[in-house]
Structures are given as C-alpha cells and as structure tokens.
C-alpha cells in the first residue's frame, strides 16, 4: 500500500497522517520531552485530531527570543459537544479546569464547542483526564475529520429540537475516529482491538483530505449558518412533526489572501432525505470527499472545491450511486435569522430557556461583569438547567423550571437583563491574536472597542437598536464566518482590515469586498456616510445588508467563485 502512494505529489500532511499509526505519532514521547514546552513538529499536526492545537504567546515572542528562551508554548484544547449541550456538572468541571490549568476563561466557539486556552504541556494530560471525568472528550474536535456537529441551539424555539439534537449526537458518533490512540495516550487505557478489523472503517489511514463540518438547522432560524457547512441538514417540520431534512453540500468559509482559487462558498441544496436516511447520506458524502478530495493542495481540499472541480451534477450522481437511491426533491423552507434571539422563552415543554449574549464567546470575569462567576453559580444551584452553546458564541441557560432562581442570580451579578446595541448583539469575533498562529490582526480583543466606536456613529443616526450582523476575524480562514456578515472585517496586518459588506441576516448570501486595508479611523469614516444614508433612505424592515446592495455600494456575490479579497 505504502509503496503505491507517490508521496512527492501529495501534501506533506498526507504522509504524516499515514505514518502516524492511526493518530499516535510520537505524542507520548513528545509529552515526556522535558527540554521543550512544545511537541514534535509532526505531532503538532497529529495532536489536532485529538482536539489539541499547539500555540504560543505572540505578544512576548520577541522578548523570549532575546532571553534565549523558546516561545511560550501552550495548547488550545477544544472540547467536542455535539449540539452544544452541557449539564451543570459538565459546566462546573470545565469552569474548574479553566481556572486550574488554562487561562481562567472558557471560550465558547462558533461551532458550539468549549475551548480552553493556555494549557501548558505538562498539564495537558491531566486536563484531558479532567475533561474525560465530565464525560466529555476532545477527539476529532480539530483535524482532518468530521468536527463538532452543530445543531440549532434553542430548545424553546422548536418542538423538534430534541430530535435534531439527538441526530447531532448520532452523526457525531458515526463519524468519530475509531482509533484507540486517544485512550492510550491521554487516558492510559489499553483498548483491545481485534487486528482483523479495519481500525478506521470510514476514514482509513489517511483520514480526510481536510476538515469536514456538519450542521443542522431548524428553519426559520439559521443560527448554525447551515450554508457555511460542508454538509448541512435543514430540518423540515410539517404539522409539528419532523418530516426529514434538506441536504446542503459544499459550504465553507476559509480562503487565502492572494489566492483566487480559494474562496468562501455557500452550500447547495441537493435534495431531501427522511430522518432514517440521514446517517447513511452523511457517511456516503464523507466517503466521496475522502475518495475525491484534493490531497495535494490543502488550500483546495475542502468539499466545496471537490464539488466545483467535478461539478454538482457529478456529485449528485456519485452520491445516488453510492446510496443506491436518489434523494427526493428538496422541500420548501424559509430562514429569517442567523443571529440569536436573546431573552427568556418558554418552550413547548413548558420549560424556560434564556439566551444570553457572551461577547466574543469569552466566559470570564471582569471588574464590571463577573460572567464566569455568575454562570458558575447558576450551574451550582440550578440542577435542572442545561447549558447550551450557540453557533453565535453565546450561551443559553435552557430547559429549566427554576426561571426565577436563574433570573435572580444573573441579576445579582449584573449579567441579565443587559442593554446591548443591535450591532453588538449580532457580533462574532474569532480568537486571533495573541494565540492563533494564523492571525494577521486582532479580533476578539479588539472588536468590542471598535463596536463601541461604531455605536457612537449609530447613535447619531438613531440606529442603535438596528440589528446589524458584524463579524471580525484575524485572517481569511474564516472561523467567525465573516463572509456571511452584513459588516465583515478580516485582518490584513496589525491594525488593518478589509471591509466586506452585503451579507444578509438569513445567512444565505456572501458579502463582497468593499474597501481594502483600512485603519480604524478609515473603517469609521467609511461606514459613517453609509449609515447616514441608511438612516435616511432605508425601506421599511430593510436590513443593512440588503440596503447596501440596493443602493449599489456593492453588488451581491452570486457564487463563491466570484468572491474577491
């Protein structure tokens, strides 16, 4: 097998994966190496499949070099949470681990996962074991595999939420790597595996060419941005019952500056399947991508390029062939919002859910807002609550009958009710500096300030309440799904951003580049006259993203291929 592969043609990572002995690599040795806080270079690729990214503090990089010290390495640990639901015990455990081994904060990601930041090497194993004690894991939270499966977040918003959430778990389980490496390396467990069976029946030795993302939306809400997923399912509810799912394929956000062969792309709806068919459909699509995805150039390896290279018709044919049946025609659906709807809501089961805003997805204590303490108190005292991470980096305290108690605790700490501008409410920022190695500019640490400055302008035009989706990332990789925002900002270099306009609130339209390499002042100066115009000339219920297209500030991006940076 090995000698049939011409490695010279393939991305370097293909060989690393192949030779890793099903994701073991030399991780055990790397963890024991006392001379460095890093792991071996190849292991930094393998560790991703275990949900672990090596990073270093870029703020102090130069200073350490001067001190003849290696960079201050630490690790990001991403905890998989299909559908984003945690129990109070799980929340408390994550809260504790964040204080004990990480930087004292919890990041809620745009894929409904937890992230711990700043865990140093010698605490990695203990931290993973702590996560495991809470019956959580980090397997396949990153890496060239199916990532955390997203699902519509708010149980109070739909009678079929429970079914959809269950499906997220089933999809996740079906597509989780089967290698015992994780248990061996992190949990010291020797799993007995029969040598006769294929270790990775779905993935094989080299796993997928690139990451793979799945999400399930329940219209009219698109909080998981279904069209940004490699594979999306749109739940179709008929007469209060789940009829099945429309299937979307080929979404993806990532792209690279200066490489027009890369672009964000929205998924195409290719048909409808019944609930019982979903797992099979998903697995076949993963297998098509495994067999046909580009393994030479990682920048062109996502499913979206596989589809654009071979054609959507080819893809459907291939899928039908593998399924042995055709998908039914797609059913009608309508999205109205991709943002979260804050506040209390009583679900069809009579229980209460409160959707909270978490700026930048960062659960921490600040002098003015002890958010982390407040949520910890809720988790400690409200035993029937669930903690649901939303696709917009926010948190829902869900499914509780103790509404008053939750309200009292949050009020005491000043967490809720909160008064927020329509812009801030609809903001997303990726991590970026100082830990993300790909970041060209700030995002999470900076967007709150920038929004404050934009708010001043909005106030001038009486637009503070206007809901406008703003998303900022530190690079075009797109972790914060900036290409779908009404105002997208993508870092080019420290203090400079490209400005993209014209996404919509339904998450069904890519934005387009409006201005390049702007400083903060230039961002404000650019937006101001547009807001002035908007205040004056917006049609009733017209959103900002639609407005800028109607008034021809930019023209809508029809297909990802036409997207330019």
């Amino acid at each position, binding site marked *: 097998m090995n000698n049939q592969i011409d490695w010279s043609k393939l991305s370097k990572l293909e060989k690393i994966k192949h030779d890793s002995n099903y994701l073991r690599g030399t991780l055990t040795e790397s963890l024991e190496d006392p001379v460095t*806080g890093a792991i071996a270079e190849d292991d930094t690729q393998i560790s991703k499949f275990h949900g672990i990214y090596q990073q270093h503090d870029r703020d102090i990089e130069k200073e350490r070099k001067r001190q*003849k*010290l*290696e960079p201050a390495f630490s690790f990001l640990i991403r905890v998989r949470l299909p559908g984003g639901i945690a129990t109070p015990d799980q929340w408390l455990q994550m809260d504790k681990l964040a204080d004990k081994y990480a930087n004292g904060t919890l990041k809620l990601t745009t894929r409904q996962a937890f992230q711990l930041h700043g865990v140093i090497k010698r605490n990695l194993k203990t931290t993973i074991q702590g996560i495991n004690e809470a019956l959580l894991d980090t397997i396949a939270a990153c890496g060239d595999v199916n990532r955390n499966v997203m699902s519509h977040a708010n149980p109070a918003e739909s009678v079929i939420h429970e079914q959809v959430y269950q499906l997220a778990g089933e999809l996740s389980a079906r597509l989780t790597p089967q290698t015992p490496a994780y248990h061996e390396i992190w949990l010291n467990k020797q799993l007995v595996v029969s040598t006769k069976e294929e270790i990775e029946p779905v993935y094989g030795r080299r796993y997928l060419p690139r990451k793979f993302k799945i999400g399930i939306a329940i219209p009219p809400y698109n909080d998981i941005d279904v069209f940004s997923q490699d594979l999306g399912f749109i739940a179709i509810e008929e007469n209060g019952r789940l009829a099945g799912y429309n299937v979307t394929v080929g979404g993806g956000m990532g792209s690279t500056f200066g490489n027009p062969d890369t672009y964000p792309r929205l998924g195409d709806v290719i048909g409808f399947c019944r609930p019982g068919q979903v797992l099979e459909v998903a697995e076949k699509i993963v297998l098509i991508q495994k067999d046909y995805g580009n393994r030479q150039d990682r920048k062109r390896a996502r499913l979206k390029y596989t589809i654009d290279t071979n054609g959507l018709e080819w893809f459907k044919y291939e899928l039908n062939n593998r399924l042995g049946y055709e998908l039914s025609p797609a059913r009608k659906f309508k999205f109205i919002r991709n943002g979260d709807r804050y506040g209390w809501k009583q679900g069809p089961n009579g229980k209460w859910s409160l959707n909270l805003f978490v700026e930048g997805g960062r659960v921490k204590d600040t002098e003015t807002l002890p958010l982390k303490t407040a949520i910890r108190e809720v988790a400690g005292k409200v035993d029937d609550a669930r903690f649901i991470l939303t696709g917009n980096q926010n948190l829902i305290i869900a499914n509780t009958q103790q509404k008053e108690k939750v309200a009292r605790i949050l009020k005491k700490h000043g967490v809720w009710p909160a008064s927020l501008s329509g812009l801030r409410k609809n903001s997303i920022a990726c991590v970026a500096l100082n830990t993300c190695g790909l970041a060209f500019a700030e995002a999470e640490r900076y967007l709150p300030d920038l929004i404050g400055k934009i708010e001043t302008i909005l106030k001038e035009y009486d637009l503070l309440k206007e809901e406008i989706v703003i998303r900022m990332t530190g690079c075009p990789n797109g972790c914060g799904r900036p290409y779908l925002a009404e105002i997208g900002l993508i870092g080019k270099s420290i203090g400079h951003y490209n400005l993209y306009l014209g996404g919509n609130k339904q998450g069904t339209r890519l934005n387009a580049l409006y201005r390049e390499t702007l400083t903060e002042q230039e961002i404000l100066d650019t937006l101001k006259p547009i807001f002035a115009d908007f205040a004056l000339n917006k049609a009733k219920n017209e959103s900002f993203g639609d407005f800028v297209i109607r008034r021809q500030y930019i023209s809508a991006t029809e297909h990802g291929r036409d997207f330019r940076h």
Partner: protein
Amino acid sequence: MPGEFIELLRPLPPRLYSISSSQEAVGEEVHITVSKVQYTNKGRVRVGACSGYLAETLEADDEVLVYIEKNKNFRLPPNGDPIIMIGAGTGIAPYRAFLQHREATGHKGKSWLFFGERRFSSDFLYQVEWQKYLKKGFLGKIDLAFSRDQETKSYVQHRLSRQQEKLFKWMNDGAYLYLCGDKKKMAVDVEKTLLEIISKQGGMTSEKAKEYLHRLKKEKRYLTEVY
C-alpha cells in the same frame, strides 16, 4: 575634601563571574551570566552592588574594568572524555562555555547536564541553546529540576538520585564530574547525594564513599566552582 573622604573608604572588592562562552566560538567577546541580587532591607528593595549595576545601569558600549582570574582545573578534559555537569542557576555558565567549545571544535564527547532552577517557563537559562546542542549531538543527556513547577519541590540532587545507577556507571567509566553554583545549599546537598549514590551503587560504607569522591578530586575528575 571629597577626595580624602573617598580614600578613607574600603575599596569595593571585585566580583567574580564565570565565563559562559568559548573563545573558539565568540572570538574576542566574553559572555557572563549574571543573576541580579535583590533583597529587601528595612522595607527598601536593594540590589547587589555589582550585579545590580550590570543588570540595571550598564548600557551597550559602556566600559567596565575587568580582569581574568584563572581557574586552571575547572576545564573540559583534554580528550573527549565523558563529562557530567551539575549546576543550578548561574552555575550553568561554565557549561555553556564547555558546549560552545565542543561545538566550535567539533568534539562530540559524551556529556550529561543536570540543571536546576525555579520555573521551566522563565528560568530555563539558554534553553534554545541546549535544545540545539541536544539536536546536534554535542549534548548527550539532560536532566532538569524546576523547583516551583510542582507542589513538592524538586532540585538537582533529586534528579541525580533518580539517575543514580547510570550516573555511577559513568563515574566508574571515567567521566569528569563538575559542580557549579550556590555553595551554601546546592553544593552541600549535591555532594551529600553524590556520596549516597556512591555508597549505595558501589556497595560502600560512607567512609569508603568519601574516599572514592576524594580520589576523584585528587585525580581532578571532580571539579567545583561554587560561590
């Protein structure tokens, strides 16, 4: 008269610093590794006269009066004999010079470094250089003790103790043993541990162990620079 007053004062005694570079590698430069002495006296933070001056006051291109005080014994063995280097804190200085020298002259003799400090993240002196020497094979083994990184404090002597079997074998096989750094605490503890190791691994009484170490000293195979 200020001049007369100054003459009445005792001249500041010189301070010694181990050279942490090899001429073979750095030519006309001399590197030293200075730890700034700092303490509180009657509520005021004081710094060491010389180390404080070097660390805080001195600027690039300033001139300092120096002289060389030779330590004839504390040197690399002439041929590539195995070396065991034990040190804590700035005690690492001469070992950096040793390895610079071995790299510059292309000698890959067996070598083993025991180093102790407080914290891995901030106090692993010359970390990237040891990494390089390990990778290139100029440094064979390294054992590290960072005392503040875990609840129970761990020092170099604990690392020695843990490696005692191998360590004793190296000693018996003719390795040179170096000890550098703090005199009051580290050197005392290390020497005590060395004696324990010799006695346990060599099956000797403590008297015999002392003799063994003494013999190494006489053969100039146990060398110290402690202060």
